[in-house]
């Protein structure tokens, strides 16, 4: 009856040792860890931003803006292609999530349909009388949005990496969201400014006639001036630019902050790839002595006049920048443009020493609570109380070890989950010991009483643990943020308690009883 096979004892001890080894890094100071040989596990529990401080930003990628842009491209394409095919049309434009056009002659409708179908892949064309409607298919829309979000996440990563932040977490969430977590960062406004800029750079020629009002001639558009005003010289408030993009910013291979050799003011030097260089060269050859506008996010940074053809594929942007502005602009250009603008849905910043008070208070409270449990268990169950306290300590150790090994994050609600897990672990020990007393009161001698208590209590412990575990798992799957943090530690704590409060406790109790062979039950 009271017998543990040797292999079982060895297995249990091995698990205990492994648990301790994996839990140790979490409570060892970093200095000591660094001096240890590399084969010792060194992963410690990751603390959530609420415990270690940092910035949490939830962003929404405006995927609809990209769809709108693609539709605009279709409109532009339709304008030129229909004209080429000699098809007369009216009312060409975007309506909601589609492009529609009316064809003047009914015999042209079929031909127009073929022309429009060639413009973009993944579109679906509906014909109603003389009206053609072009829209993206569901699948194509999903593909476009998916690509936009993952590309955005990649650009966000590049930009954040350039700032030199340690251990950033960048995750896609849902269909159109990106979650950014930056431990230790507490200047959210700078990060937000970096991410809020699309950094889409294009080079345009100016239209021959500069429009006065908001309306621009066909093929042109009005762009505001982003030029910083120099003392005594006023820059124009806006420019009328040709729609055609001469060179796009994605042809850039490098951008660095530097200083203009003559004036000494901060500028951004850039270099194009081969195709970009030849486009840039061709444009400058054909347009000597005309202004060439550099547009960033629909604002003209500067519109210098082309003095001579630039063939090398490199140039510089001067926009009366400060050194910091030149640095940030070159960072943005290097990392590339965001395919779509982002909006911030949620921001949480925790300062480095928040909470140092509240966390200190929380720790004190937990230690006092824990000591109360230890003392009362000892008072109530004597030697077996010590066993229970060892089991509790093991439970805490294993919970930390598993969290460290799997890279789970410990948050404030997570600590609440840990406390509930501990309460369930104490309960398991109490159930077993109270059962021992019952069995002993019914006249059983020590050995059978201990044995029966473990057998009987096991069912109860299993049932109550599984019930709570089910709740924990469902909360993890369907909950969000803090609720999940809670569920993880709770679930791990409960699973561990099956080992620490049942198996390990059993081994310790049995060892005690078979070693000392007491005449009366020690509880």
């Amino acid at each position, binding site marked *: 009856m009271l017998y543990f096979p040797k292999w079982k004892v060895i297995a249990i001890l091995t698990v205990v040792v492994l648990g301790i080894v994996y839990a140790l890094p979490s409570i060892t100071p970093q200095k000591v860890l660094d001096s240890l040989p590399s084969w010792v596990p060194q992963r410690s529990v990751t603390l959530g931003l609420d415990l270690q401080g940092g910035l949490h930003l939830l962003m929404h990628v405006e995927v609809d803006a990209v769809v709108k842009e693609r539709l605009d491209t279709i409109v532009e394409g339709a304008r030129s292609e229909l004209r080429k095919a000699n098809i007369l049309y009216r009312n060409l434009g975007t309506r909601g999530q589609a492009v529609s056009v009316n064809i003047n002659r009914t015999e042209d409708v079929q031909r127009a349909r073929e022309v429009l179908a060639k413009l973009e892949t993944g579109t679906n064309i509906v014909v109603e009388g003389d009206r053609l409607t072009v829209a993206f298919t569901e699948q194509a829309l999903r593909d476009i949005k998916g690509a936009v979000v993952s590309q955005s996440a990649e650009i966000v990563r590049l930009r954040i990496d350039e700032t030199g932040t340690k251990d950033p977490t960048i995750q896609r969430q849902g269909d159109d969201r990106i979650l950014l977590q930056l431990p230790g960062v507490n200047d959210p406004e700078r990060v937000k400014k970096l991410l809020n800029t699309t950094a889409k750079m294009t080079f345009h020629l100016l239209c021959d006639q500069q429009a006065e009002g908001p309306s621009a001639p066909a093929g042109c558009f009005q762009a505001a001036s982003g030029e910083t005003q120099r003392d005594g010289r006023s820059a124009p408030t806006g420019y009328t630019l040709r729609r055609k993009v001469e060179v796009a910013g994605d042809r850039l291979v490098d951008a660095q902050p530097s200083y203009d050799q003559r004036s000494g003011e901060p500028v951004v030097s850039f270099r194009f790839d081969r195709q970009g260089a030849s486009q840039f060269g061709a444009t400058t050859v054909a347009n000597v002595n005309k202004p060439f506008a550099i547009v960033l996010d629909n604002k003209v940074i500067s519109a210098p006049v082309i003095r001579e053809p630039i063939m090398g594929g490199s140039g510089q942007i001067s926009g009366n920048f400060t050194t910091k502005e030149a640095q940030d602009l070159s960072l943005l250009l290097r990392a590339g443009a965001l395919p779509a603008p982002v909006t911030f849905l949620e921001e949480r910043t925790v300062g480095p020493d928040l909470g140092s008070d509240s966390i200190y208070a929380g720790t004190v409270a937990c230690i006092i609570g824990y000591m109360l*449990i230890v003392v009362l268990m000892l008072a109530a169950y004597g030697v077996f109380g010590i066993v229970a306290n060892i089991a509790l300590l093991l439970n805490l150790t294993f919970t930390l070890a598993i969290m460290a090994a799997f890279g789970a994050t410990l948050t404030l609600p997570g600590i609440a989950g840990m406390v509930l897990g501990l309460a369930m672990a104490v309960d398991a020990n109490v159930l077993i010991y109270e059962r021992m007393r019952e069995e002993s009161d019914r006249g059983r001698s020590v050995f059978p009483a201990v044995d029966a208590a473990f057998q009987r209590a096991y069912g109860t412990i299993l049932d109550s643990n599984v019930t709570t575990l089910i709740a924990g798992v469902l909360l993890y799957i369907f909950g969000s943020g803090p609720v999940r943090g809670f569920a993880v530690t709770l679930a791990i704590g409960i699973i561990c308690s099956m080992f620490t409060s049942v198996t390990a406790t059993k081994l310790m109790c049995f060892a005690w009883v078979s070693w000392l062979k007491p005449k009366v039950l020690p509880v």
Partner: protein
Amino acid sequence: MAFRGFRILRAVPSLDYFRFHKLCFAISIFLCVASVVSLATRGLNFGVDFAGGILIEARKTTPIDLADVRAKVNALNLGDISLQEFGRNTDILLRVQSQGDEKAEMAAVQKIRETLGTEFSYERVEVVGPRVGKELIRDAVIAIILALSGIMAYMAFRFSWRAGLSGVVAILHDCLTTVGLFSILGLQFDLNTVAAVVTIAGFSINDTVVIDDRIRENTRLYKSMDFRELINLSVNQTMARTLMTNGLVLLSTLALLIFGGPLLFGLAFALLWGVIAGTYSTIYVAAPMEWYLAARGRKHIKASEAEGEPSHS
């Protein structure tokens, strides 16, 4: 070993828990109705997590002139603002109502940072847009409903549908009165409180399962015993464990409430109420309800037998 530890109970008690069950039902129903009424009329004091808006905890090295800060922030015209000292006179807690949409919210927090200036260090800034707030409520509600259904299904499978139903009613009773208490007292309700409510549910169900387990065991041992007595016996037999475990949890929750500081107060308060309600509801809600459900079942069986039909379980 001379030292054997103290016994919290000298012997198994022989109390009748049904003596006051009608009074207890009345109290429970009153508490639940009061909670629902308060929730319907007063609502919950939702924190930034759910209502959206801005929460800033800031610190200065010198004592803060609250009136000055209030005047500066009010001048920004951001709507409803609450400003209070937080813990000590160098710390403030500022809450600003939801600004309608995310962009306005981010603009508002930037303005506040500029207005307060560099004298302040920001210990905690939370800006939650209305979209996220709504989703957080939805997610929390879905997660809790599914967790409760899962618990009920497991208990129905392991014990009986009566046990499952009674257990879930007891949990609902505990959670509802906790949320109701937050509504009546106007305490702030945020995601940490949700974690507390879920902890209460977990604790309450653990307690109920332990007694149900004993009921199941005793049903096999004492086949002819009256169900009401059987429940009494089971509750009495597990009373020592109930007092010990729940007493330990109660003490550590008290420690959290007294020493845990302002950030954990809401959590600790909810847990304290939950431990008391959970212990009470297991004995005075779940157990009698199981008896009622079983008694109705038996009447049904007797009626069927009287008509000469085979009885079904």
